[in-house]
C-alpha cells in the first residue's frame, strides 16, 4: 500500500484516497511543434526501474493535484510537493541523492 503525504492537507493519505495522474514534469508540445515532438508529448512516457516522478490527485480529499517522487521498485517515497513546479525542488533531489547515491537524475 502506498501512502503519500498531501502537501496541501498535510495528511498521510492512503493510496485509495488518491487517483494517479501519470508521469510528472512533462513538457507540452502544442501547435507549431514537429510531429516527433508532439508524438513524444502524447505517447512517450518514462518507465524507470528506480526513482520516478508522478502526478497524484487527492481525489477523495482536498481535490488538489500534487507531485510525488518515489522508487518504483521499493515503493519508497522520497517526498511530495505542490504541482505548481516545473522541476523537482532541491529538497526532494537532495532526499533522493541521500538514499540513492548512484541515481543519475531524471532521464
Amino acid at each position, binding site marked *: 500500500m502506498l501512502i503519500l503525504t498531501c502537501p*496541501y492537507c498535510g495528511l498521510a493519505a492512503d493510496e*485509495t*484516497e488518491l487517483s494517479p495522474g501519470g508521469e510528472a514534469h512533462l513538457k507540452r508540445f502544442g501547435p507549431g511543434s514537429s510531429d516527433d515532438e508532439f508524438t513524444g508529448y502524447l505517447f512517450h512516457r518514462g518507465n524507470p526501474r528506480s526513482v520516478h516522478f508522478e502526478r497524484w490527485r487527492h481525489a477523495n*480529499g482536498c481535490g488538489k493535484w500534487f507531485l510525488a517522487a518515489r522508487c518504483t521498485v521499493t515503493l519508497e517515497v522520497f517526498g511530495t510537493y505542490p504541482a505548481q513546479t516545473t522541476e523537482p525542488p532541491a529538497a526532494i533531489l537532495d532526499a533522493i541523492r541521500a538514499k540513492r547515491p548512484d541515481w543519475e537524475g531524471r532521464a
Partner: protein
Amino acid sequence: MSDAMTALATVTLLPPQGMVTLRADLGDAAVRAAIEAATGHAVPDTRSITGTGEAGLGWMSPDELMVFTGREAAPALAGSLAEALAGQHHLALDVSDARAVFLVEGPGVREVIAKLCPVDMAPGAFGPGELRRTRLAQIAAAFWMESETRLRLVCFRSVARYAEDVLTNAARPGTAVGLF
C-alpha cells in the same frame, strides 16, 4: 463498548441542511475578514471546522470552505457573502441540495468510521474540531466529531442511500472490533 445486542452506533439521516460553498484566496487578510464578518465564524485552519455543522465553517481545501447555515437562510447567505467579497476573486454558491448529512451517534462511532475509511480514528489522532474529507467505502465523504460519541458525516445526496447502508452495516450489533 457495546454488547452483542446493541448497535455500535445509530445512523440518522438529518433534515436538509443549508450549505454554501465558498471559494476564495483564504490566505488573503481582506478575504478572511469579509468571511468572518459575513458568517460570524473564524476561518478554520487546515482540516478543521469552526462553529458547528448547523452554523459554522468547514475547511474543504486550501481555497475552499463549506459554510453551514439554516436551509432557508442559505440563498441569502450566499448573496451576502458574494456582496462582502465583491472585487475579490471568489465563488459563493448555495449547494444545500447537493449533499446529505448523517448523524452517527453511539459509543462505537470511531469503530464504525475506522471500518469504512482509511483514517486513523484513534483518540489523539483524530478528534473533535477536526474535519476529514476522505473515502467512505466506495464514495467520497467528509466527517467531523462533535464529541467522543457523536459524529456528523456529509456525502453527496445521490449516494446517500449507499452511505446509510454501509454505515448501518458497519454499526451492526455484535461487530465491535474493540480497537479503541
